[in-house]
């Protein structure tokens, strides 16, 4: 198949050990799925609470946060696979997600007070 290399970039199915270390791979998948989820949860919560606090109707803020949050999840997911260091991804996603979730909680407390 002379032209097979033109468009097919998928790694050839070799069992060569060490090409994709299983732990590193699992960590990357975990960061993309779970880290990405945590980050987007925080984003959706803080945008939702924040926009409501700024006067946007509750369900408008909810929908806008969700629409942007879904796209952000996609970006975070792809970035985690493309990034050189998976540790950085874990850190950014979890710390960022945590901070935004905390900020959302503070906004809620302020609005309820």
């Amino acid at each position, binding site marked *: 198949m002379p032209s097979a290399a033109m468009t097919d970039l998928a790694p050839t199915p070799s069992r060569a050990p060490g090409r*994709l*270390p299983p732990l590193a791979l699992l960590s990357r998948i975990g960061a993309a799925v779970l880290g990405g989820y945590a980050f987007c949860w925080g984003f959706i919560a803080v945008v939702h609470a924040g926009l409501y606090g700024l006067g946007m109707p*509750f369900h*408008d803020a909810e929908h806008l946060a969700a629409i942007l949050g*879904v796209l952000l999840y*996609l970006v975070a997911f792809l970035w985690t*696979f*493309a990034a050189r260091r998976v540790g950085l991804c874990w850190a950014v996603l979890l710390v960022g997600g945590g901070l935004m979730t905390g900020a959302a909680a503070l906004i809620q407390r302020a609005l309820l007070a």
Partner: protein
Amino acid sequence: MFQNFRLSMAWLHTWFGLVLGFVLMVVFFFGSLSVFDREIDRWAIPSSRFAPQPMPSFDTILKPAFERMQPDKDAIALLDGRVDGPLPERFEVVRSWGAYTTHRDPVVSVFAGFEVPRAKDPDETVFASHALDPRTGAVLPQGQLRVGSEFFYPLHYSLHLKWKDLGTWIVGFSALMMLAALISGVVMHRKIFREFFTFRRHKTVQRSALDLHNLTGVVALPFHFFFAFTGLVIFAGIYFPVAHTQLHELHELHERVEARETGLPHERAGVAAPMASVDAMVAQAQRRWQAKGMAGDVGFVYVSHVGDANAYVSVYRAGTDRVALTGEGIHFKATTGELLREDPPRSAVDSVNEFLTGLHLQHFRHWLLRWLYVLGGLLGCVCIATGFLFFVEKRKQQHAKAGSAGSRVVDALAVTTVTGMLVATMAMLVANRLLPESLADKGDWERTVFWSAWGLAMLHAFARGGALARARMNPAWREQCGLIAAGAVTAVVANAVTTGDHLGRTLAAGYWPVAGVDLSLLATAAVAILAAGRLGRRAKATATGQSPAVLAAAEARHG
């Protein structure tokens, strides 16, 4: 870990695409069928083969039907573990009644939500839902399954895995991976414009599968991206239940503020009170829409706090003439019929959201677009199926040499999800026509036939997978194509025999719901026969040592 960006995207595309492709195949195929779910319902339930009806009278048709409703045993079973103490015999406190119809529905869908006494979550609601004949108020036979809207459609978004919404989560993650696969696919293929016009039909299976994969992936890319994305937006409240968990109190605050501003009570008063005529309220709503120059079809009537002094009635306009779903709600006090509120015009965010979800759910009247949706969905199926084929073709020689079962397993799963899924669908439709109408739990039997046929198709695919060990094509592909064709023709004949609505009659009468399903089945049979024939010739040629390219050239000469 990955040498470069494109390799990382290629890895993501290959492996996530492979694993979740099996789910996506189901989602795309049954999504395509769901475009005509109401029409498939007509085919499956002959007693509902009459013209679409407007929303019936609430006072004389709907109210008596609502008052007879109680949740069924399946709905009650789901409450297990969510209640302190025993469940009641009857659910007395009605939270809500709803009646819903579209321009394609002869039957009207009704549901009632009941308060659950001693529930751990005070907001817990158990639902009863039925389909009614709007001309008489008669409930459609309980055991009969609306195959399109109650089976294929929920299969599309939930895989019928109801436990903790597990299926909806799996479908959601698959949709996210569909988006990732589309983007990583574009990254992998830099010459995207040229590939758009490349389809080397007569080269090897591996070449033509990849060409077709690229072609369908690119030509329908905006469609696929849009549907995967809007699917996620529709269920965003399930995937990110922020407003019901972390921001629950803010949500409660908002609802109290909203109740104060809109005058629509948030809570029951706890005082029983009778209802005024809802028909009069509906008529008034229609007059108000007309005054604004809007068509007056009623799509949705909803009663909150039924039987209470705080009860109110919401009347919504059907989504026939625009992308957004039901809307322009007008709300009345249920005890007096006094106007409480008219919904204000949509805000910008709400318009965007309604547009995104409405374009996915398409309740509007536009038959050409409806067929384009089917085409887009089926192109998605072709894209995923050729992805599987390419994966297998690329590896099968190597795996056969190394004695690895990898491509054999993937191929058997591909047979299961591509042709096996169609075998199961055909088996279900045939069972629907052959099982007696009077059979109690007829719908449950149809479900059993569907899953059993799919299971058998899987066993068949694995049993016949030995050919892969010799780097040949699995004969199950061809054999199941034959089964699909036989099933589709049987379904059409069975429909004609059991109901008398053969194509001669339905086409002459212009009764498209049933004629359309029959014609689609015949088209499926034709495609399956063509595919089986081609696969058969290829298998013979491979067996006699001819290369597929020679065979293809010969085929091309013979036209």
